[in-house]
């Protein structure tokens, strides 16, 4: 018999938890859901656009009745659960019916606070929480004229805006002198108020309501100072209170909300709780992003995987009033130890404030131009050290030379036919349609359904912006912890940590131990795991060639016609007549269709048939060449210039330095491709400042630069430090590479990695701490002992022969 899972509260957090449970353990439970509202689960956030006439109720249904049926879930709507018999494991509904459970999930949300004013029970006095409230408001707007909204917070303003859109004459009464005081500081609140006034809303600030007057229905609102205002509808939007009625009746421990631990269990271990009704580490939440994070963890435990922990969330807010851009996150008031960075341009209506403590963002408020909201929020959550770009941070990310991110306005203005994903040829209209039709919430969903951002990923920022614009609200904020791929809930960091801690040494072990959701992973996670294991256990791990992308599996780069390219190493980009003659001879003997000098200073043979690869490698190997790894997430090339040996400006022997570095680093597998270059003077002919590790010679020694790349988004390197000797260059280089190898996420090149962790983080380990540097360098050199075997020579001698020959030829 299946165990019984009962959910009380058919809302956003509860149903999301069920979805997650079904993904993890589709057959574990017999599920019953009780919902007080007469509807299946809908998107509560979108009630504001419904009120404003921008969306319909049908459009905001998240799971229709068919969904419950398809998943074998019994849905009981219009019934309220009034008590729980925790000894007999039963819930009792308002009609007296009983239903037993093995596990119970409470997700009763919250209730609008109704001020205890005289007249509060009159007809026409309501909160703003559910479809019923919206129906009442829409009905009132067709019959009456004057609406009063009590409370100038997020909900109050969205209600006021909606009612105004429906043609009512709306006044907002607010107790304080500042609108949205929980989200805005003085300056931004003033800007917001004046633009709302321009649209026709009226405000009474620092005003208190004394009573609501009327016989049957509300007629007037009386203020503390005696003024009476005409009112046909009063919306109370003064806050929400976790709905703990049921939990209290059942004598579960509650304070403000139902108290839960990091696994979302209440004080009764059979009873879980998620959503707004919950109090976790003294915090309650009123936005969906954190609730969905709770859902994920809770589902993991309900499915008896038992690994995740919920550790609280940082939230950010946007106001869903079309045409008004406003963003806030974290602690934007600050404290005695924090500082404010402010940009204010009243004429163009732009305001930005960042609250910074120890060079980390702890809060942000933006008004007028919120393009960089998600960037600041990422920096805030990642606790990135902003020292390196503090001076320009207020000008936004575009100013960092990183284009193509978070440009809400630009994206909003784009035509539906504008191409977003160049790789898959997907335009804006298709993505928006998929998001609305399929009810997509996450980047992963969009990738699955449209393929947008599924390939090179350079349009990810645009797709995220489209998600934010289309779905609205806080969905712009994808959950902080992104799983490695759809096969697991764990992040890259969690996977890497677990491999080390638990000494997991094969892909199978990792998948079993971490309870992978698919039998043998996918083309995304398997190559990642293979690299993480190679990096963690250089002397022990046995490479899994079936988990490598074709190029790395056969040590050559696949071309569009299915043939391959062969690029041998040419150390430091230098060669000899003898080598060139040998290359020419080999190319001729094998009738190589195209010979190309590459952008990385190597010679490329293109158009080689797979079955001929071992033979050509055999010849190259005899002539002294080794694999150039131009096909791998590995050390690629070290480019050099002619340097002090020949050049009239050269200050050091950059060519020799490049050759030495290439001999030291070749063969190393990396999270992504890794390129180096050495220039002989700051004229920088070897383009060292757009390489992952670039060395520029100066009179006094060598400057070391890190984190550059060419490609779609060019990023120039950051200057790391200057050193004097060759040995130092080698040690710093080895240490930097090992730090990156052991901490970056698979397929994260040094540029995005450095932007994520911060240059200061890197410097603290590689420059400031000699001991750490030595340790990293030693680790690198140790792992190199096992990686500097030429894969081509081995294959020319017969390794993996099956890769290069058909099993049978029937021709």
């Amino acid at each position, binding site marked *: 018999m299946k165990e019984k899972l009962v959910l009380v509260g058919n809302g956003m957090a509860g149903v999301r938890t069920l979805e997650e449970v079904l993904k993890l353990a589709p057959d574990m439970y017999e599920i019953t859901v009780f919902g007080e509202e007469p509807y299946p689960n809908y998107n509560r956030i979108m009630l504001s656009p419904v009120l404003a006439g921008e969306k319909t109720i049908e459009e905001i249904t998240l799971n229709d009745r068919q969904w419950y049926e398809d998943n074998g879930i019994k849905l009981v709507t219009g019934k309220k659960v009034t008590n729980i018999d925790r000894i007999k494991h039963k819930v009792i509904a308002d009609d007296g019916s009983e239903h037993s459970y093995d596990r119970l999930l409470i997700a009763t949300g919250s209730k609008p606070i109704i001020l205890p004013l005289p007249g509060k029970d009159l007809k026409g006095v309501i909160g703003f929480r559910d479809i019923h409230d919206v129906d009442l408001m829409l009905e009132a707007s067709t019959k009456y004229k004057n609406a009063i909204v009590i409370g100038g917070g997020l909900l109050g303003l969205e209600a006021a805006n909606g009612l105004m859109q429906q043609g009512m004459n709306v006044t907002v009464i607010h107790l304080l002198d500042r609108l949205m005081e929980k989200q805005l500081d003085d300056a931004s609140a003033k800007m917001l108020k004046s633009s709302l006034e321009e649209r026709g809303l009226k405000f009474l600030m620092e005003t208190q309501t004394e009573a609501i007057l009327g016989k049957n229905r509300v007629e007037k609102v009386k203020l503390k100072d005696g003024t009476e205002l005409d009112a046909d509808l009063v919306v109370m939007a003064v806050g929400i209170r976790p709905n703990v009625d049921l939990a209290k009746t059942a004598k579960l421990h509650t304070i403000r909300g139902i108290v839960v631990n990091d696994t979302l269990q209440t004080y009764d271990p059979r009873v879980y709780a998620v959503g707004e009704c919950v109090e976790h580490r003294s915090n309650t939440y009123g936005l969906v992003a954190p609730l969905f994070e709770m859902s994920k963890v809770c589902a993991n435990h309900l499915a008896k995987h038992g690994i995740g922990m919920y550790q609280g969330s940082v939230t950010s807010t946007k106001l869903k009033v079309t045409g008004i851009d406003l963003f806030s996150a974290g602690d934007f008031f600050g404290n005695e130890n924090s500082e404010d960075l402010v940009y204010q341009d009243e004429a163009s209506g732009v305001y930005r404030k960042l609250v910074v403590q120890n060079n980390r963002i702890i809060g942000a408020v933006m008004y007028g131009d919120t393009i960089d909201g998600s960037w600041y929020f990422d920096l805030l959550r990642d606790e990135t050290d902003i020292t390196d770009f503090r001076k320009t941070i207020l000008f936004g990310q575009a100013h960092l030379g990183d284009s193509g991110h978070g440009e809400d306005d630009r994206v909003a203005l784009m035509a539906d036919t504008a191409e977003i994903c160049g790789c898959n040829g997907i335009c804006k209209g298709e993505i928006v349609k998929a998001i609305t039709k399929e009810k997509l919430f996450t980047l992963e969903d969009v990738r699955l359904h449209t393929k947008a951002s599924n390939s090179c990923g350079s349009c990810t920022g645009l797709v995220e912006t489209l998600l934010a614009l289309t779905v609205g609200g806080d969905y712009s904020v994808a959950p902080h912890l992104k799983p490695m791929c759809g096969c697991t809930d764990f992040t890259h960091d969690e996977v890497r940590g677990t491999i080390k801690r638990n000494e997991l040494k094969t892909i199978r072990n990792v998948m079993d131990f971490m309870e992978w959701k698919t039998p043998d992973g996918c083309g995304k996670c398997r190559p990642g795991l293979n690299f993480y294991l190679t990096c963690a256990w250089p002397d022990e791990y046995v490479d899994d060639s079936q988990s490598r992308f074709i190029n790395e599996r056969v040590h050559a780069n696949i071309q569009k016609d299915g043939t391959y390219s062969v690029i041998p190493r040419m150390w430091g980009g230098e060669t000899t007549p003898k080598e060139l003659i040998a290359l020419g001879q080999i190319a001729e003997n094998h009738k190589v269709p195209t010979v190309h000098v590459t952008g990385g200073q190597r010679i490329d043979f293109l158009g080689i048939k797979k079955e001929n690869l071992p033979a050509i490698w055999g010849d190259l190997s005899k002539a002294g060449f080794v694999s150039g790894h131009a096909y791998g997430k590995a050390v690629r090339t070290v480019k050099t210039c002619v340097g002090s040996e020949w050049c009239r400006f050269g200050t050091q022997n950059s060519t020799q330095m490049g050759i030495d570095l290439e001999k030291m680093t070749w063969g190393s597998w990396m999270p992504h491709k890794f390129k180096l270059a050495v220039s002989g003077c700051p004229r920088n002919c070897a383009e060292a400042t757009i390489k992952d590790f670039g060395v520029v010679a100066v009179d006094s020694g060598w400057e070391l630069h890190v984190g550059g790349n060419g490609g779609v988004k060019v990023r120039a390197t950051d200057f790391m430090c200057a050193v004097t000797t060759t040995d130092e260059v080698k040690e710093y280089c080895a240490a930097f590479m090992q730090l990156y190898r052991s901490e970056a996420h698979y397929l994260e090149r040094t540029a995005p990695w450095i932007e994520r962790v911060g240059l200061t983080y890197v410097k603290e380990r590689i420059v400031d701490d000699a001991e750490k540097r030595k340790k990293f360098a030693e680790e690198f050199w140790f792992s190199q002992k096992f990686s500097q075997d030429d894969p081509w020579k081995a294959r020319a001698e017969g390794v993996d022969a099956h890769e290069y020959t*058909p*099993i049978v030829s*029937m021709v």
Partner: protein
Amino acid sequence: MSENWLKVGKFDDIPKLGSRLVKTADGDIAIFRTSEDEIFALRDSCPHKQGPLSQGIVYGKKVSCPLHDWKIHLDTGLAVAPDEGCTASFPVKIDAGIVYISLDEKKTEE
């Protein structure tokens, strides 16, 4: 249906989660082996732009094409939704450790 079985080679010569090629007068056919030791045969040509599926990564009962990462069902040759397309699939069997193939295409309802 009476298939005309042709001998391909030893089952053990196909790597787990990998594939081998059968060259025929009619073009290449890829034989795949899953982690559960099932085998499947598809025309070695992706419905997208004819990428060689034999070179892809095999997982579950799917292979991801090496050129642009379409996923193809090994049993039917159909592209995994939302992509659309189909490549020919062929009957295969193992008998006493030897793999046999029939060159009469399987019928797949789209």
